[in-house]
């Protein structure tokens, strides 16, 4: 881990501690909790896509498996939420392993198609296996999480808990990036042939990182179930997998902080746009809510056109440029004085 990352994690932690004092509205706090869940899934996905260079449009399926494992085991079998979450993780490890073995042999578009197919299979099962998943009407009355008897029964508590998990996940991911394993993954991204000629077992590494990123998604799904307390197949459709990929790409695929930025931006943007339309309505400016989607799309398009390396990289570079310019101006002035 480098100094920049320590600063980043410290800054994020501080921000998370402060936010509930500023945002007292439960609805917006809820939005920020969903943001945390997206962040968690995107950290895992970024390890897979940005570092190992393997695409997956199937991570919504792993979120679904985690969520359904938590929901089914706690409501129908009366398991404790923690045991159910653990079982979800174990299930996802097995599923990701057996899905990964055949699909990770594929490259690029073919891998994208295969994982997309997997996502739609899981979605169809969650709709059709009525006896098991409740079908389209879903599962209700999922119990809340509690830590050592301390129930997470308010949005503020769940907010802190979910973001604590995100920060822990981020810490582990950043350590991984700068380790031997992280270098092996980046090497696979750079050149599979060269990586294997240096002793990196590319098949095993690809499967391992696929499984790890699926674990992140699974935990995100379990947390979703225990926060909303009700699940149905709706939020776990194929479009959700696509949205996760979009988040990572918009934020910056080659950087874990980029993935985080993208997840935060795209989770908050729709809320901001609808807030904006309400606000403008107060001034007598009315437009259809469809325009929200239009603006949303236009923003994505502009980011990808002008900041192809992602929003985080773009912001980081422009801030750096401003600092450099300022330094140069200061230097120029002091030299001018002499």
């Amino acid at each position, binding site marked *: 881990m480098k100094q920049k990352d320590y600063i980043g994690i410290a800054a994020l932690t501080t921000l998370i501690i402060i936010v509930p004092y500023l945002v007292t509205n439960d609805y917006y706090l809820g939005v920020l909790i969903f943001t945390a869940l997206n962040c968690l899934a995107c950290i895992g996905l970024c390890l897979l896509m940005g570092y190992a260079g393997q695409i997956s449009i199937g991570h919504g399926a792993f979120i679904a498996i985690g969520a359904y494992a938590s929901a089914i085991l706690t409501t129908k079998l009366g398991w404790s939420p923690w045991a159910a979450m653990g079982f979800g993780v174990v299930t996802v490890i097995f599923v990701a392993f057996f899905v990964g073995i055949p699909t990770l042999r594929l490259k690029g578009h073919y891998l994208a198609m295969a994982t997309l197919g997997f996502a739609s299979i899981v979605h169809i099962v969650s709709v059709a296996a009525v006896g098991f998943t409740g079908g389209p009407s879903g599962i209700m009355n999922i119990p809340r999480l509690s830590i050592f008897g301390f129930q997470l029964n308010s949005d503020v508590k769940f907010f802190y808990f979910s973001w604590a998990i995100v920060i822990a996940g981020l810490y582990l991911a950043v350590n991984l990036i700068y380790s031997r*394993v992280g*270098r092996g993954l980046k090497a696979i991204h750079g050149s599979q042939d*060269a990586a294997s000629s240096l002793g990196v077992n590319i098949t095993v590494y690809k499967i391992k990182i696929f499984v790890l990123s699926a674990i992140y998604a699974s935990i995100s799904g379990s947390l979703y179930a225990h926060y909303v307390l009700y699940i149905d197949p709706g939020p776990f459709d194929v479009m959700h997998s696509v949205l996760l990929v979009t988040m990572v790409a918009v934020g910056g695929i080659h950087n874990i902080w980029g993935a985080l930025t993208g997840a935060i931006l795209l989770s908050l943007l729709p809320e901001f746009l609808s807030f904006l339309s309400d606000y403008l309505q107060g001034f007598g400016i009315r437009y259809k809510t469809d325009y929200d989607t239009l603006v949303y799309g236009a923003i994505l398009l502009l980011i990808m056109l002008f900041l192809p390396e992602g929003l985080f990289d773009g912001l980081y570079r422009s801030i750096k440029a401003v600092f450099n310019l300022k330094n140069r101006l200061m230097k120029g002035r002091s030299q001018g004085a002499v």
Partner: protein
Amino acid sequence: MQSDILKLEQLHKNFGGVTAVDNLSLSFAKGEVTSLIGPNGAGKTTVFNLITGFIKPSSGKIIFNGWHLNGKKPHMIAAMGIGRTFQNVQVFSNMTVLENIMVGRHLRSRCGMFFSSVLPPFLRLEENRIRSAAKEWISFLKLDQYADFSAGILPLGNQRMLEIARALALEPNLLLLDEPASGLNARETIAMGELIQKIKSMDITVILVEHDMELVMDISDRVAVINFGRLIAEGTPKEVQQNPDVITAYLGT
């Protein structure tokens, strides 16, 4: 007489109907620089790919230090002590020069995904060891000033040097260099020749595929000539140069 480090026995490789390597039997002596030469498409790179496990032979045997390499995956062959470079340079352009070489130390530590994420103190020490070893290789190849550069932006000559440094960081017994001097200017080619001799003096056996005949004749202990996948001549540089078959293969009849 030194012992052989690598032996190819009646090695054969077909791609569909095309025979790329045809009953090739060759031995490579330990500690020597052997060059593999031949016209374009003669099957030299295919021989490298067979040795390092990137493609499987149709028949025949590859024996390295008494071990059969047939059916072994590239990463296992790397672990047995064979390093290689590629004809089209394959540096990891998404990493810095230092990180590239640190990948070369991959097999010198065993830590897996769990410990890498949790990062216990002993791992920090190991990371430092890997880093300082990589820095030594950077100094050896005189790439110090580029250590923190992204590998993709280096000029071709330095990328070739980096690729060799990365393969050396593996600490191989046998190093396969696939056209290390192609695309280099005269001065860089001379430096490459000096480097290969330095590598030889470190007790690393080198097999070289190269089109620059001056370089080949200068630094090779032995030269093997192949054409259409078949061995047509083998011997010291001088012997090979005077061989009529070789002259025919290169100049035509």
